[in-house]
């Protein structure tokens, strides 16, 4: 126990070290974010000293852009589940490695949520009154106390799952499914709960007819499942771009170029057994078969074993040296994994008879064992070995175009539902036309000569509808147009469920008074600071996670 604890602590220490390393672009980006954080901190210090009077909020409009951002970001955090469900319930392989990007985004988003709540408090020094057991917690009466529990619980779940899975990759040990599958499945329900509870914060207020509508909960989920995956689509492409280089002409793959080629010997198998302990349990029969059909290749640096898209049979085990598995998407080449002794490649197409999913190139002079498909099947009759090989089949950081297009489907469907539910709400409000329509009238058309939100909401509607049309057209199967649709959806939803939902709930006031709201500069700077803080967190998390997923950062390196 203490040893695994020590290992984990050294893992964290090395992650911290890694997070501080990078090229000038990394330092420029994180430095700029840090500077923006400080600008926000400065604005917050002013608010702390002078009170919330430095914001645009009033007794009439008691919540403003802080709570609007909070509401939006809870949705972003909840949306991580839209990657988990396809992978763990529908067994989608393309998205398998991307789940962790969604969960890391959830961590950053929840931290931003907590920051937005803290800056909204009049007495942040009394936050301890909200800690169950120490303070006095109005549970289950207050929906806000529910929110404290679900948000912190969700944060803990995601930190745990990410840390465990990344640590296993780092330590090169197969994760124990009993240790990560239960939290992942709990996380699915939990993700839905965080956004439902956040919706109930508003829905539960009988004195605010604009919010007191049963459809807000479903609307929140639909808009979250649009904006969240849209954000992930953009983030993944940025990761892909930064870890990629332009695809160059790699020589065609043929093992005939190898420096030497000879049949496998008992010594080679013993060497493999050293790096792959599970190999020891292989039956003698399978060993004989392997000796009869296996070939050992000695290759120089830059030798290409196999090429993405071509056909080929046979899998490879690295005996010595290092092999990079590269993938080409949209004309750019990325390393999805690097392999050391004892690890395999080429097994997916060997087992399935499908074209190669990636290109494998020697990063240094290497020695590998080539195993024909039949011999590989023999090997996999050994349960221990099969488990390891199957587990490693997915250990690749692929961000394939197909994965992004799967996410496009999710955004597409969620956007249709989102616009449909919004339409339902609009119908109910305006067709009935009773006194309760005031807030909606104020939002969409202005009320008694006040119309601060009108340009905003129509911008949001234009963004949402354009995004919807784009997503429905085949044009968005091109990533460029998909990006446009995603940006429009994010902007539209940020306005619609942030400012467009929180502010009009307060206007007119319960006594019919109209006091408009617009955020002050100080308030806006605090928001920028928190967003920069969130991006900084996400950047650092990715800085550590990507090399681990690529297999470049392991306990051995």
């Amino acid at each position, binding site marked *: 126990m203490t040893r695994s604890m020590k290992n984990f602590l050294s893992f964290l220490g090395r992650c911290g070290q890694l997070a501080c*390393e990078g090229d000038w672009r990394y330092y420029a980006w994180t430095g700029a974010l840090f500077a923006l954080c400080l600008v926000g901190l400065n604005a917050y210090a002013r608010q702390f000293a002078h009170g919330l009077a430095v914001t645009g909020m009033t007794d009439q409009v008691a919540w403003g852009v802080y709570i609007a951002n909070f509401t939006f970001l809870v949705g972003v955090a909840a949306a991580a589940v839209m990657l988990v469900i396809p992978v763990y319930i529908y067994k989608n392989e393309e998205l398998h490695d991307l789940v962790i990007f969604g969960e890391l985004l959830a961590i950053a988003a929840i931290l931003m949520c907590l920051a937005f709540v803290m800056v909204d408090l009049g*007495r942040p020094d009394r936050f301890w009154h909200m800690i169950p057991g120490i303070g006095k917690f109005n549970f289950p009466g207050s929906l806000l106390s529910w929110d404290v529990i679900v948000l912190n619980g969700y944060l803990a779940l995601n930190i745990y799952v990410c840390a465990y899975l990344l640590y296993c990759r780092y330590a090169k040990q197969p994760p124990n499914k009993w240790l990560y599958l239960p939290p992942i499945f709990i996380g699915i329900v939990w993700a839905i709960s965080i956004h439902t509870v956040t919706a109930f914060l508003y829905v539960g207020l009988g004195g605010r007819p604009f919010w007191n509508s049963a459809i807000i909960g479903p609307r929140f989920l639909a808009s979250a499942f649009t904006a969240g995956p849209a954000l992930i689509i953009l983030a993944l492409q940025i990761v892909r771009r930064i870890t990629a280089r332009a695809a160059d002409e790699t020589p065609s793959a043929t093992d005939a170029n190898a420096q030497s080629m000879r049949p496998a010997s008992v010594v080679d198998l013993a060497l493999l057994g050293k790096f792959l302990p599970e190999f020891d349990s292989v039956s003698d029969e399978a060993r004989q078969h392997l000796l009869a059909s296996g070939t050992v290749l000695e290759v120089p640096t830059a030798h290409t074993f196999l090429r993405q898209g071509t056909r080929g049979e046979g899998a490879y085990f690295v005996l010595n040296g290092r092999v990079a598995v590269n993938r080409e998407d949209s004309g750019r080449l990325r390393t999805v994994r690097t392999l050391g002794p004892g690890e395999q490649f080429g097994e997916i197409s060997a087992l399935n008879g499908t074209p190669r999913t990636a290109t494998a190139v020697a990063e240094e002079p290497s020695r590998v064992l080539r195993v024909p498909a039949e011999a590989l099947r023999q090997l996999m009759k050994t349960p221990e070995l099969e488990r390891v090989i199957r587990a490693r089949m997915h250990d690749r950081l692929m961000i394939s175009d197909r994965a992004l297009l799967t996410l496009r489907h999710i955004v597409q469907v969620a956007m249709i539902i989102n616009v449909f539910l919004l339409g339902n709400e609009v119908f109910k409000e305006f067709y009935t036309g009773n006194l309760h329509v005031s807030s909606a009238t104020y939002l969409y058309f202005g009320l008694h000569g006040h119309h601060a939100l009108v340009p905003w909401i129509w911008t949001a509607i234009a963004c949402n509808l354009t995004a919807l049309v784009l997503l429905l057209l085949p044009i968005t199967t091109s990533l460029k147009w998909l990006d446009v649709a995603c940006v429009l959806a994010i902007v539209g939803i940020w306005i619609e469920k942030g400012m467009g939902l929180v502010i009009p709930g307060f206007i007119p006031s319960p006594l019919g008074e109209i006091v408009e709201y617009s955020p002050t500069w100080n308030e806006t700077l605090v928001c920028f600071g928190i967003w920069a803080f969130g991006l900084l967190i996400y950047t650092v998390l990715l800085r550590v996670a990507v090399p681990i997923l690529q297999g470049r950062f392991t306990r051995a390196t």
Partner: protein
Amino acid sequence: MAANTSLPNLAAPPPPEGTSRRSFLRASAAVASGLAAMAASLAPLRELSDLGSVEEFLQNHYKELTPVEMEQALARIRREVEKQYGLRPHVRDLRPMDGVEFVYCLNLTRCIGCRKCVHACVAENNQSRSPEIQYIRVLKMPNGTFDMEKGDHHYATPTVPEKGFFYMPVQCHQCKNPPCVKVCPVDATWQESDGITVIDYDWCIGCRYCEAACPYFARRFNFAEPKIPKEQINPDMAYLGNRPRHKGVMEKCHFCIQRTRAGKYPACLEVCPTGARKFGNILDPASEVSQILRHKRVFVLKEEVGTLPRFFYYFDV
């Protein structure tokens, strides 16, 4: 999101051992300048005027205080008021009386909209003069409608009462089913046995959820440190009532707890020149409010919200 412009050069080899001293110095310089910049960004904290005492910070919830702790809290409040306003206040912790449930009745036929109740309330309850906080809102309503969007909140008083209008003061309705109490995450506001919904100003975290929940616009938030001229301080104070508040917490009408629990009428009632305001114990069948509820045609505001107010309106005719 441009979050990830950070991941280039992942294959960069670790720096050779010889440079570790230099890179350590560089890293320390970066950390030091980062911390210095952070400290500089916190400069506005120097303008902080009212650093709360450690005692106040650590103080427990009102309902958890032992009699001794309550005495200490009252002594601390006396000290603080004396230091800030230069007079020694009379601060008490008044508890509800048995067999009492307070109810307010307001005669809309009589109210002339003079706002004397508003001013009396501000003076009695030590409300901030800047920024202005008032518990009572008087609406000038055109005859023939109850649509409050048609009401005027900012009419001028010298001309009241104006023909064709009636005046409707609104303050905390001390609901029997108070949404503000339900939503408070830290139990900083609750309903007492005499029907008054109170706030522990030393426990409120200032999230303003109660303000969002209230259907009567009865709650007020201290957006800035309240300012009250020293000579205008009312020294007769109650812990859950009119003792001075600090910035960042909620406050509201509490039926003048410091008066009504000591057998007096609320300030708004005493000052009313037309006798439009009636206050008393609904559990006493002989009380004036019981009579009114029995014999007048009374109504409550926004009955459909289900808050069951203890504040009733009625007309003479």
